[in-house]
C-alpha cells in the first residue's frame, strides 16, 4: 500500500472516529453550558441507551426502530437524571455534582451488567462497514462512516441553529448564562435545565449508537469514548459547541495518525499528551478567545 493511500486512510478514519468523539463532547458541552457540571455519567447513560437499542433490534429485527428507541430513551433518561438527581446538587458545591455523576456511572454500569451481562455483544452498523473502492484499492472509509460524519454534522448544525435562532434556544442560553436574571424575565429556568440535560443525553445516545459497532456493547465498553470525548470537549473549551466538534475531529485525526504510524497502544497516552499540551498553551481551550465570564 502506498504512503499516500495510507495517509488518506488514516485521515478518513480519524475524521470518522473524531465525529463520534465530537458527539460525546457535544453532550458534555451542552450540560456544562446549561448547569456548569461535567457529566461523568454520560458514558454510562449512552451505554444504557445503546443496550436498549440492542435489545429492540434483537427482538424486532429493525435497526432503525432500535435507533429511534435509543434516542427517545436518551431524551427521557437525561430529563429524569436531571430532575431526580442533579436538581438536588445543582446549587451546591461543584464536587457534590461530580460525586453524584460518578456514583450514577457506577450504578448504571453495575445495573447494566446485571440486566444484560458483562460479556460485550456485537452491535450492527446502520450501513455497511465495507470501505469504498477507489481505483482498485479499498479505503478504510465506509458508507457507515459517511453516515456517522453526516449525522454528527447535522446534529451540531441543528443545535447551533436551535440555540441561535429560536426563542427556546434563547431561553436556554439565558438560563445557563444568568439563571437569576433569566427568572426575573419569566424564563422557567428549571425546565430549561431539564431540557438541556435531555438534549445532551439524546446527543450522547446518538454517539453510543454510532460507536457501538466498533467497540461492541458492554457495561464498560464506552469508558474510553467518554475520556476521548472529554478530551475533545476540553480542547474546544467546554463552553463552545463548535469547539467541541472541531476538538473531536482534531483529536480523532491525531489519535488515528498515532495509532497508524506509531502503534495502537500509544493512543490513550497520546490523548493525554494532547490534553496537557492544549491546557498548557491555552488553558481555556482552543476556542476560548476573549470570552471570559464576568461575574
Amino acid at each position, binding site marked *: 500500500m502506498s504512503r499516500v493511500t495510507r495517509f488518506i486512510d488514516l485521515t478518513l478514519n480519524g475524521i470518522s472516529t473524531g465525529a463520534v468523539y465530537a458527539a460525546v463532547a457535544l453532550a458534555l458541552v451542552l450540560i456544562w453550558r446549561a448547569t456548569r457540571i461535567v457529566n461523568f455519567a454520560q458514558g454510562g447513560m449512552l451505554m444504557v441507551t445503546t443496550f436498549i437499542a440492542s435489545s429492540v433490534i434483537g427482538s424486532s429485527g429493525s435497526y432503525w426502530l432500535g435507533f429511534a428507541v435509543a434516542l427517545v430513551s436518551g431524551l427521557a433518561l437525561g430529563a429524569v437524571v436531571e430532575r431526580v438527581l442533579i436538581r438536588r446538587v445543582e446549587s451546591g458545591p461543584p464536587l457534590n455534582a461530580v460525586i453524584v455523576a460518578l456514583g450514577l456511572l457506577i450504578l448504571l454500569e453495575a445495573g447494566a451488567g446485571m440486566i444484560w451481562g458483562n460479556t460485550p455483544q456485537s452491535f450492527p452498523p446502520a450501513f455497511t462497514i465495507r470501505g469504498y473502492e477507489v481505483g482498485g484499492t479499498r479505503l478504510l472509509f465506509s458508507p457507515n462512516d459517511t453516515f456517522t460524519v453526516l449525522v454528527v454534522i447535522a446534529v451540531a448544525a441543528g443545535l447551533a441553529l436551535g440555540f441561535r435562532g429560536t426563542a427556546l434556544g434563547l431561553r436556554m442560553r439565558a438560563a445557563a448564562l444568568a439563571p437569576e436574571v433569566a427568572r*426575573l424575565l419569566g424564563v422557567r429556568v428549571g425546565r430549561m435545565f431539564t431540557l438541556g440535560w435531555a438534549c445532551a443525553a439524546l446527543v450522547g445516545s446518538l454517539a453510543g449508537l454510532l460507536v457501538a459497532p466498533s467497540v461492541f456493547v458492554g457495561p464498560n465498553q464506552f469508558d474510553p469514548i467518554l475520556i476521548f470525548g472529554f478530551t475533545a470537549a476540553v480542547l474546544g473549551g467546554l463552553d463552545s459547541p463548535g469547539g467541541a466538534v472541531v476538538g473531536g475531529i482534531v483529536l480523532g485525526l491525531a489519535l488515528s495518525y498515532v495509532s497508524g504510524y506509531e502503534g495502537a497502544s500509544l493512543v490513550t497516552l497520546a490523548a493525554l499528551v494532547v490534553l496537557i499540551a492544549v491546557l498548557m498553551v491555552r488553558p481555556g481551550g482552543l476556542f476560548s478567545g476573549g470570552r471570559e465570564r464576568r461575574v
Partner: protein
Amino acid sequence: MSDGPMSDAPMSAGPPSAGRTSADGTSAGPTGEAPALQIDGLRTDYGPVRAVDDVTLSVYAGSVTAVLGANGAGKTSLLRTISGLERASAGSVRLAGEEILGVAVEDIVRRGLAHVPEGRGVIGELSTEENLRLGGLFRGARSAPLSEMYELFPALAERRGQQAASLSGGERQMLSIGRALMGRPRVLLLDEPSLGLAPIVVAQIMRLIRALAAERGLAVLLVEQNARSALAIADRGIVLNLGRVVADEPAGALAADEGLRHAYLGF
C-alpha cells in the same frame, strides 16, 4: 394592558409636578386610586440578620417612589423580596390588589412586575437584541415590539448586533430598562440604576424614569443611594435604615428636611 401615550422624545420630559401626594402624607393615591403595589409589614431574614424589618409602603401608577438609605439599609433585599427572589418571613405584597408573596419569580413577572436588578443584569454574552427579545418572550405575541425600544433608546439600535458586554455603563442601564419594558410591566422595580454612571448619564436615566412613569402610567419603585438625583424625580421618598422605614414623605419635603438628610442621606 394599557400604555400611556407614547412620546417621541420621552427623555426630554420635564421635572415632576410637585406635591402629587396629598399634603397630609397619608398613603392615599394621587387621585385616590388603589396602589399598583402595596407592601405591608414586610420582613426578610437572612438567618439571624433581619434585612427588611416591618416595611410598609405603597406605589401608585404613574408615580415614582424612591427608597433611599445607606449601604446595607436593606434596599436591595426589599426589592428582591418583592420580586420573589428572597423569601419573606412575614407581611404581604399585593400587586394590583392580589397577594404575590409565595408566588414563583417567573409567575410574578407574568403578572406585570418587572425587576431590573442591581449591577444592571444585562447578559453580556448575548447580543443587545437578544437581551431585549428575552424580556418579551414570556408575553409571546403581546410583547412590546423591538422597534419601540429602539425608538426609546436610539443608542441601542446602533448596537443591536453587538455583544451586550461591549456596551457602556449607560447603554447597559438603558438595555436592562428596555428589556424590562418589553414585557409591558405595570410595576417597575429599579435597583440602583445610577450606580457607576457619570453624572450626566445619571441625569439622563433619571429623566427617562420620570417620563416612563408620567407617560406610560408605570408605577416605579426606585432604590437609590444617590438620594439627591432620586428625589429630584420622585413623587415620594422613603428612607430605610437597618431595614426599617424611618421616613416616608413627599419627595420635596424629604429633600427639604435637613436633619433627616444629614442623618441618613449624607447630603
